[in-house]
Structures are given as C-alpha cells and as structure tokens.
C-alpha cells in the first residue's frame, strides 16, 4: 500500500482508501488541496503562521473525522468547512482577549456605512486581472476580522445568509449588516486604491 502511486486516482477513491486507513491516499489528498485549504485559512486570518498552523490542524481533524464524511459535498468543500470552523474558533479566542474595535462598535450602533457616499463609478473597471487581485487582497486586509469573514463566506464560499449566521453563530440581521458594511467599505477602499494607483 505504501508504494502505491495515487497521483492519477480520483478524489473519491482516495477518500475511500483513506477511510480504510491508507495514509498514502490521505497524503495525496493533502498534496492536491493544501494550497486551497491554506488560502482559505489565510483569507480569514491574514497571518501566514496562523494560517499554516490552522490548515494543518484542519487536515489532522479531517483524518480523524474521515468516517463521518459521507460524500454529500466534495471532499474539498468538507475540508474547507472544517478549516473555516477552526479559523472562527481561533478568531473568537483572540476576540475574547481584546476590546472591540471602534469600527465594530460603530457597526453595532448603526454604522458609518450608512453615511458613506455612494461610489458612482466602477472602481475596478479596466484593471488587469492580476492588478485587480492585488487590490482586492489589499482592500480585504483593511477590513475588520468579522467583516472580512462574512465577505469571504458569502463571496468566496457562496454561503447564503442563513448558513453564514449558523457558521458564525450570530443572527441573520448581524450577517446582513456586516455584509453591507463590508461591501460598502470595499467599494470605498477600491476607489481610494484606484485614486492612489
């Protein structure tokens, strides 16, 4: 089993082999999807070291819970959910150790986003893909953790409001408010980046 080449094997077959205890099959799954899992952890944590640690923890948990994987979603979706939950736990732990930022307090009390002027032109128009990617990444890094998380879950993970609320353990109203703030802030940041660039 140890010498078996898994490189051409389907994910589903590898998962079944891993469920039987085949570590080489699991190693192949890690090799295939490690960048995606790391990228999701990084998009939520914005810290390389934490993202590496949490993504590794996600793989360990994935191995331990493989028996629970029924194939209702793809293996990467399942692993991504484990990663997101670990990142959210870590963010909650960190939040308990510091006071809320002024930005978050603003959001709870009605929010500055209500007063922000509407960005009338598309700030990403005529940008090259690579340039756009860099600007979006820069803008995302300037959002607070809770706003970035809700945006990542909605825009990149395609979760609906209800699923986000369940995942983040908050109300749908909070999800909607955070998403609205995050989008408006992103529009303003992208406009500013366009001006400065």
């Amino acid at each position, binding site marked *: 089993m140890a010498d078996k080449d898994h490189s051409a094997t389907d994910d589903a077959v590898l998962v079944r082999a891993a469920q039987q205890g085949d570590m080489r099959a699991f190693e192949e799954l*890690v090799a295939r999807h490690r960048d995606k899992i790391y990228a999701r952890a990084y998009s939520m944590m914005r810290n390389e070291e934490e993202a590496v640690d949490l993504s590794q923890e996600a793989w360990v948990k994935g*191995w331990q819970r493989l028996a629970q994987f029924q194939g209702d979603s793809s293996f990467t979706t399942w692993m991504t959910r484990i990663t997101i939950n670990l990142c959210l736990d870590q963010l909650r732990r960190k939040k308990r150790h510091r006071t809320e930022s002024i930005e978050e307090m603003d959001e709870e009390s009605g929010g500055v986003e209500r007063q922000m002027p509407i960005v009338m032109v598309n700030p990403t128009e005529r940008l090259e893909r690579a340039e756009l990617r860099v600007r*979006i990444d820069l803008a995302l890094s300037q959002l607070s953790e809770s706003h970035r998380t809700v945006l990542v879950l*909605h825009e*990149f993970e395609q979760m*609906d409001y209800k699923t986000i609320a369940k995942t983040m353990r908050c109300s749908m109203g909070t999800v*909607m408010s955070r998403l609205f703030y995050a989008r408006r802030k992103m529009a303003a940041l992208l406009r500013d980046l366009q001006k400065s660039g």
Partner: protein
Amino acid sequence: MKPEVQLKLQAYLDGELSSGEAKAVADLIARDAEARALLAELTHTCSALAGFEAESKLPESGEFYWSKIARDIQRQERRSPERSPASIFALLRRFAVPTSVLVALLLGLLVVKQQLGFDHRFAVLETDTAQVDAGTFTYRDFASGTTLVWLSYPAENEFAETDPAGTINWE
C-alpha cells in the same frame, strides 16, 4: 435611505427575498435614483470580488507541511490507539456520570434537609436503621409523613420477605 431599505436592497441583490418582497424592491429601484446608485455600487463590489480571490500559496514545502501533519496524526493516535474502548468509555461517561451526579445531588439534598429541619429524636432512629442493614437507605419526610426506603439488593432478600412493602414501621 432607511437602514432597513438598504439591507433590503442588498438582500434583493443576493436573491434572499421572497417574490413579493423582491417585487416591492424592484418597484423602489425603478422610481428611486439613490436606490439605483446604491444597488450599482453593491453590484460592482460583488462582481469585482467574484473569482478574484488572491491565490495564496503555502509558504513552506509540501513535504515539510505533510511531515508535520503525519507526525500530529501519529501522536494523537498513540494517545488513543483503540477506538472501541474509547467509545465504551464515552458511552459510560455519557450515562454514568449524569446518573452519579443526580444521585449525589439527591443525597446532598437529603443530608441538608436532615440537618436543617429534623428533630434529633428521629435522626437517632434513622442512624439505628442504617446500622441494622448497611445496604438500606431510608428517607423520612416528617412534614408529609412519608417514608422512603432504598434497597440496594433484590427484593427477595430477607428484609423484603419480612416486609413485602419494603418499608419500615417506625412506631
């Protein structure tokens, strides 16, 4: 624009409204320039984000990354090598612990009640009972005149034979 309307506009964009609500928001967009402008801004942001997530690459070699995962898996498996005993233990913990806690609470309640509200004369009587048979636990509520005897062995023992009801006549 009211905050609720702003959030409705966003929910409209995200397809989170019922058909009736969506119709109402569509009507608003048709007649309100500010609503149209806000919707356009939200739409631009969404389309900018769609498919443009930065491609983050793992900042270390795949081999090193896997070696840490494999080491962690092995370490955790050494800590709990057998799944079945762990499951039995989990099962025991699930049922035995709550039961023990409940029994302990009941016993604690009895002790507190005895110490706070009972006549010393009766307490002596109860102590005697405990000495007669260590496997029997007796509780008597003097306020309601109720006596409860808890036998820790089957009913066919000698004590039960002398008193089929399993109670003690105190008088």
